[in-house]
């Protein structure tokens, strides 16, 4: 799969899911409502900078803390399809995969990216291009790639139910 887009940088490390989507709004179940609270505790103006082709570029241990799926659900509701980070917290990473949201760990690519950089991610070739500079990314295990290719765990589950 190939993802192309424009970088929006969240340069800090250990950004937790509480600041990405604060507790008081956890009683919302509709992603189209959730999206208005994405980044609320971090910097609400980030919402205004989201474009149709935004790829979030993030630091170490992104998505630490709470398992709230509201964060990647709200990201998807804004049309975000991909994140590139130095590293991801485990539950957040799982949630992304399960929602068909590609989360790629690659420190060099993050260091090379600035706001507005053009990114091109090729999962088959295992490379990320940042403004034309090419970086190798760790290959996604086939199992996880299968979930992403299906569009997420829901579709993967539907396939399992229909094929037995």
């Amino acid at each position, binding site marked *: 799969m190939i993802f192309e887009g424009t970088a929006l940088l969240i340069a800090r490390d250990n950004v937790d899911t509480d*600041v990405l989507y604060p507790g008081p709004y956890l009683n919302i179940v509709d992603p189209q409502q959730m999206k208005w609270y994405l980044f609320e505790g971090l910097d609400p103006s980030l919402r205004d900078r989201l474009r149709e082709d935004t790829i979030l570029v993030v630091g170490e241990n992104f998505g*630490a*803390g709470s398992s709230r*799926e509201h964060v990647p659900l709200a990201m998807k509701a804004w049309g975000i399809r991909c994140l590139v980070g130095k590293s991801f917290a485990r539950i957040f990473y*799982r949630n992304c995969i399960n929602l068909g949201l590609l989360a790629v760990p690659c420190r060099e690519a993050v260091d090379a990216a600035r706001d507005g950089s053009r990114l091109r991610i090729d999962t088959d070739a295992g490379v990320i291009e940042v403004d034309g500079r090419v970086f190798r990314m760790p290959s996604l295990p086939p199992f996880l790639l299968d979930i992403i290719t299906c569009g997420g765990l829901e579709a993967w*589950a*539907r396939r399992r139910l229909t094929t037995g």
Partner: protein
Amino acid sequence: MPHTLVEKILLAHTDAADIAPGDIIMVRCDVVLANDISGPVAFRAMERMGARRVFDPQKVVMVADHFTPAKDAMSAALLRSLEEWCESQGVTFYGQGRGGIEHTLLCEEGWVVPGTVIAGGDSHTCTYGALGAFGTGLGSTDIAFCLAFGEFWQVVPGTIQVVFEGTRPPFITGKDLILAVIAHIGVAGGTNHVLEFVGAGAESLSIDERLAVSNMAVEAGAETGLFPADATTAAYLQGRTTRPWVAERSDPHAQFAQRVRIALDALSPLVAAPHSPGNVIPVEDARGVRIDQVYIGNCANGTLTDLRQAAEVLRGRRVHPRVRAIIVPATSSIYRQALREGLIDVFLEAGAIVSPPTCGACFGGHMGVLAAGERAVTTTNRNFRGRMGSPEAEVYLANAWVAASAAVAGEIVHPAEFLAEVRA
């Protein structure tokens, strides 16, 4: 092949013939848990997966604890939908006034036994490691899959063995032990790993103290924090559960990713200063920090042990006039026992607020959120910016001795300033 404790647990719950860290496997669940936040999102996902019924109603449990009692009409509707779903699926539901905070409750109610796998739609499901179970936090889509199929995908984690050496000085609790671990390995140091707690210092901990330790494994990024089951575990489970279990531990030659030694003899009570659980300093270094609120509660530090510690400080003393002290017994049965022991009276006499069991302000939901510029000492597990209310508020994490002492002093102090001698 020698295996670590977590590998043994996972091997018993998967079809794979053998496993090693990094392998991706499907893991069968013994219990699937969700709450009023993760549950309703998961139910919708389960429906979209095309599954109408849960894989096994006996193995599913739902707890209303985050927005309880409902903080507004929207939360009330959410709680209602949770209750209706449980009724239609025939699964166990702990409603308001009939349970408490999920993790304390499930241990108390005998859902958790050593060697089992518990998938929970809450990051602090890692608390069940205290009883030797692979309890692990998952998001709502994972939980939906667990509800439908009774299993989830898992990358086999490595093991970081944490050896607690020596004996604890007075006022050192499970909270201090885990803060020491997080200070040592960092807030992401446990990513893709489990922590395994061993050594004389680990074995000496009561189950309440172990809950406090395992609960914050996720604050080090770990998937769970395991205490190998022992006589203390067996005594705790006696009479609570009829579920079968066996005590397992890591093989002598098992491969650990890392071994960390924490010497307890020289430990001071620790606090995590704003805004990270990894920002750990000895209580002495925070001395004199003025506070507005104390919050004693949460899934791991609203136990009877915590309430007793707090009562020992508050007995015959008054909460500082400038300070609000909010005390939250984690479950109804802890609340009742505290009542029997006269602890609730001690709290009310001291001028504290006693809340019903609820997650409440622990995640900034309600029942004690902070205003801009306010500062709190809490026995909770996260002091992220804005976690308990305003992003301009500050939270210090500490044990119940330290929190209660701060309530009286109006500032952070070493509990020894109030209590010359203490029961161990």
